[in-house]
């Protein structure tokens, strides 16, 4: 029986494969242009497929979601109707407040988020694996998109562009554990950093607040827009669900529910920011 030789050979193969993986991982950490080019190439190659798959399997996956979550859908529908009524009421007020704010910021020469041009794109694929927190959209550099641009929807911040090819782009969602964004609390203005903790989960915000500071439940957080920040200010991010102590009990962490439901996105808007120099 030559099994010991076979074992020896397969162990050697495995060792070589592991070394190759580690070499690739190292290359990737050094931001190898070869790897990012290969990824953009693969993404472009599969991009037509995503659109077709979205159209072809959409009805079936919708049916699947309908079957597995019918009760939820009904409840959600009722909740949404109530929400719409409430929002109609506040929209008029907000419009007035927004125009006043825009006027004031304009006088102070501060950029207002409402003035940044956006482009709408369709979501053609959700996360591809259980560990991926990115989605694909159907527009890319041909629409002026660049890596790093903020992505929003009607509710608030969705994520940022991490890969752009000619006709599609990849969005890293705010729920990605690797995602971090500078935020500030409304109305106190207390700064913090929001981090994702996985699909459908709440964000955690590290603040510099004392651990006994009180933060109202339901308080809103927006992007801070601090100097050299990756995002412009005033984009709504989420609402405080509860607080907990962090930083070894010295500071306060906020548990924040994102305003944008990143699990059910159909369309998103990419903010063309920073606007091309």
């Amino acid at each position, binding site marked *: *029986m*030559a*099994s010991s*030789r*076979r*074992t020896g*050979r*397969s162990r050697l*193969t*495995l060792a070589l*494969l*592991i070394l*190759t*993986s*580690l*070499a*690739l*991982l190292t*290359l*990737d*950490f050094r931001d190898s242009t070869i*790897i990012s080019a*290969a*990824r953009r190439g*693969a*993404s472009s190659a*599969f991009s037509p*497929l*995503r659109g*077709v*798959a979205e159209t*072809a*399997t959409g009805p079936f*996956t919708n049916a*699947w979601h309908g079957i*597995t979550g019918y009760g939820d859908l009904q409840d959600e529908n009722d909740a949404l109707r109530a929400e719409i009524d409430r929002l109609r009421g506040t929209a008029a007020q907000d419009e007035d407040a927004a125009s006043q704010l825009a006027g004031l910021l304009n006088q102070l020469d501060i950029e207002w988020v409402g003035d940044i041009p956006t482009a709408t794109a369709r979501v053609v*694929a*959700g*996360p*591809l*694996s*259980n*560990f*991926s927190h*990115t989605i694909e959209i159907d527009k890319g550099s041909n629409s002026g998109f660049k890596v790093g641009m903020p992505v929003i929807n009607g509710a608030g911040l969705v994520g940022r562009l*991490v*890969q752009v090819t000619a006709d599609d782009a*990849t969005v*890293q969602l705010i729920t990605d*554990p*690797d995602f971090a964004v500078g935020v500030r609390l409304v109305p106190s203005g207390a700064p913090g950093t929001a*981090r994702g*903790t*996985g*699909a*459908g*989960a709440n964000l955690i915000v590290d603040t510099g607040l004392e651990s006994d500071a009180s933060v109202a439940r339901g308080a809103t957080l927006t992007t801070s827009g601090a100097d050299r920040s990756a995002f412009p200010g005033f984009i709504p991010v989420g609402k405080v669900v509860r607080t907990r102590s962090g930083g070894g009990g010295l500071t306060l962490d906020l548990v924040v529910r994102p305003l944008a439901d990143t699990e059910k996105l159909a369309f998103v808007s990419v903010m063309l920011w920073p606007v091309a120099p």
Partner: protein
Amino acid sequence: MIPEGPLVTATRISLLLVLALTVQIAVASRIEVFGVQGDLMLLVAVAAGLAAGPDRGAIVGFAAGITFDLLLQSPFGLSALTYALVAYVAGSLQDSVLRAAWWIPVATAAAASALGVILYGVFGTVVGEDLLDLPLLRIALVAGLLNALVAPALLPIVRWAITPSGGMRPRTMAR
């Protein structure tokens, strides 16, 4: 039986990988159970181990991982590392598994898939991804079960792609 060149086998396996990736994008990634989706590329790696043994299985697993890595934004090579190891482990069980009852390869595919998820989480954390915040055990269990559902269909296809002569494993290997 005319022996096939390695190029033919490699082409067939490449086609299989592209096809599996297509199904992952078009179907598998859109069907979530308890917020978890199946992982076809991982299942291909496991099936390759079961069909071809640890040596060639690990190579196919590595190729499956690299193919998947190309479309993910996670560290490049992380899936390749994980899938090669899982295929190796599955391949080491090959002898005892393939001669047993039909459900044993399926159960092995489920267990190896779950192992793959855990390994990915651990390796990912080692290279700096914050994956331990995620419900790893739940993902492993559900992904393992989903993969087990697909395994009876996928195992024969992968076996054919690797050894089309229909042999459970190449008996000429013992040299």
